[in-house]
């Protein structure tokens, strides 16, 4: 819809539990300047900036983009701040893309970040009574019952989560920016890690990270000019979609939410994808707890309900499988919450551009980026193609 738009530059920080070597502004600039360099542009070429992060309480700064405006080169430009819970990184990229599709900007810089070392995210996500049930501690405590329900419905073996965690952490060893690099990880070490929220073990849980990602999105002429300068092909955005549903509603299925199914259907329709399993080469999806890989494989329509765990078990989602999932190591290896969605979108774009380095899959023509947030109620997705639509 609207004008064509492509990803022409991607930059991310080295993610870590504490990035104590840089200020907050410095953290963002690390990502911003890498993205601009990748696009062979300077900040002067940028028409508008769209920025996203998760709750302001994580760093203790209300609407921090105002203070950051100068550091990210926004002075004199439009600066829009998106906040849609955990899906925010994806939503932010989609809002940025809509600026180009609408024709209000030719080159847009989009940034997503979190500096989780400033606070304790688990307790920030544990809402006081009466907002949530007693004894729900952190997002894992919230999602564990839905994972158990998935296991019950699908009759999945109870080690599928271990396989996902092992795969993603091994993939992360090929991603120099990933937060967790655990070369000694094994099936047994994951299995023996302590149980946090049954059935979620410590090693099946995302870390808490400081980090940022930035992307440059551009219209057709600017994208082709940038590709000529850099020698790297643009990742053309062929579909974008966002869907939301309430945290609680009668009949709502929190294991495979309607909002996720609707969002996938919308983005596939835009991209002309009728058989996602056959037509999508690589997926970056938001898996903060290992079991969400098989759950999202089903929600995204890559297989029938109850079959997602089989794809994981058969190795389909490994780097050498026919549907690699989270080649970057995913959220299980890197989780600056506000940035995690855009990292999925950006890593998917890197695969299409052929710039993913050691975790690059050969010959990627179509990729999907997915992010979710809240009580599995906010979804953002985009599809990318190596060929201009």
């Amino acid at each position, binding site marked *: *819809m*609207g004008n064509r738009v492509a990803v022409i530059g991607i930059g991310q920080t080295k993610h870590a539990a504490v990035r104590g070597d840089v*200020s907050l502004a410095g953290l963002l600039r690390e990502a911003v300047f890498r993205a601009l360099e990748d696009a062979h542009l300077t900040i002067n070429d940028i028409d508008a900036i769209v920025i996203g992060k*998760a*709750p*302001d*309480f*994580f*760093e*203790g*700064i*209300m*609407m*921090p983009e*105002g*203070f*950051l*405006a*100068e550091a990210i080169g*926004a*002075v*004199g*430009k*439009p*600066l*829009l*701040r*998106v*906040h*849609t*819970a955990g899906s925010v990184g994806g*939503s932010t990229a989609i*809002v940025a893309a*809509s*600026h180009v*599709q*609408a*024709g*209000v900007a030719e080159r847009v810089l989009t940034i997503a970040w979190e500096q989780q070392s400033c606070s304790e995210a688990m307790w*920030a*996500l544990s*809402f006081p009574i009466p*907002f949530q049930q007693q004894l729900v501690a952190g997002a894992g405590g919230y999602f564990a019952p839905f994972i158990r329900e998935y296991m019950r419905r699908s009759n999945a073996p109870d080690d599928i989560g271990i396989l996902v965690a092992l795969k993603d952490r091994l993939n992360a060893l090929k991603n120099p920016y990933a937060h967790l690099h655990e070369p000694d990880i094994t099936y047994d070490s994951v299995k023996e890690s302590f149980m946090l929220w049954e059935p979620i073990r410590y090693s099946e849980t995302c870390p808490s990270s400081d980090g940022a990602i930035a992307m440059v999105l551009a219209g057709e002429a600017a994208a082709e000019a940038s590709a000529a300068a850099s020698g790297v092909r643009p990742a053309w955005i062929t579909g*974008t*979609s*966002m*869907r*939301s*549903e*309430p*945290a609680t*509603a009668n009949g709502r299925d929190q294991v495979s*939410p*309607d*909002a996720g199914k*609707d969002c996938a259907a919308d983005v596939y329709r835009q991209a002309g994808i009728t058989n996602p399993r056959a037509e999508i080469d690589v997926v970056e999806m938001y898996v903060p707890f290992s079991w969400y890989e098989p759950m999202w494989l089903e929600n995204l329509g890559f297989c029938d309900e109850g079959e997602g765990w089989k794809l994981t078990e058969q190795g389909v989602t490994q780097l050498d499988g026919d549907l690699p999932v989270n080649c970057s190591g995913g959220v299980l290896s890197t989780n600056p919450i506000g940035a995690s969605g855009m990292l999925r979108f950006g890593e998917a774009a890197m695969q299409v551009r052929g710039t993913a380095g050691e975790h690059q899959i050969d010959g990627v023509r179509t990729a999907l980026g997915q992010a979710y947030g*809240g*009580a599995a*109620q*906010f979804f953002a997705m985009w599809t990318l193609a190596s060929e201009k639509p």
Partner: protein
Amino acid sequence: MTAATSASFQRAPRDVAIVSVAQSRHERAIVDRNEVELIQPVIQQALEQVGVQKGEIDFTCSGSSDYLAGQAFSFVMTLDAVGAWPPIAESHVEMDGAWALYEAWVKIQSGHADTALIYSYGKSSPGDLPHVLSRQLDPYYYQPLWPDAVALAGIQARQMLDAGKITPERMAEIAFVSREAARTNPNAQLQGSAPVAELLAADYLSDPLRRHDCAPISDGGVAVVLAAGDRAKRWADRPAWIRGIDHRIDSHNFGARDLTVAPSAALAAANAGVAFDKVDVAELHAPFTPQHQLLVDALGLGDDVSVNPSGGALAANPMMAAGLIRLGEVANRIMSGEVDRGVAHATSGHLLQQNLVAVLEGA
């Protein structure tokens, strides 16, 4: 840069209009309703005015602040006011609702939607607002000093006075005119004013600002419906067409900025095309009287423009909503046929750091 030098104004490809506006009555403290209960009837009224069910809206976008709510992800609960079931296409900005409207306008321009519901709300009453807003500052250099929002505005007012751009008498006159105008605004929190001489005899709140120079602390919300092309014409007899809209930001480094000007407001006004034709009415989001004068100058508004006939933010200033309310107030005057062309302004951050300007027309 002044508005008259604009060369970058381009009319957007799709005609998009505000077709419905609803507001709460703004109060110092709404204690009998939470945020969901506050905004739900406002949203319902905005939809009913155009005879639309929520399922007929293509895109929903809201604006609010977790810091006001005292709760991470506070907007998640407020989604219940929309009834997002079955699922909807929806987004949220941690900004004034005017920027939510901008996101929705871009979405419609991109062809992804033909209609949009925008809402925003803020309850400042649970906290100490001037100090809460100090958390919006640079965390390394400003936050540790806990400068409150009124004290910061006082520094700007002092610079305006020293530069000869305003006088205490003019400040009092702006307050008097705004709150007298608010007598006809049923949603206003402050209606009517003591005479200027009496205002000037009052003690300072934060020298050189007196209480009358400051917006009240308000709880309230607003909802707006946008529609494109023929849909807008079906939903409203006289849609308020958005003929230009732009937003820009200035530096946060107050010590390095000339606080008597707002380059981002002037640039947004130029890009929105304010100077391209006669302006009948303007609604400016100016929480302090010197900012009112600063914005009149930045937008190049002449003496013939009716400024803030609603009373503006000086009569009611619900955080995160007061900017979108300015768009709504101008739209209402166009939809009623009272005026043909109006300018709406919204601000975000301290000391007019970030500004949005829209031009609305009846034809």
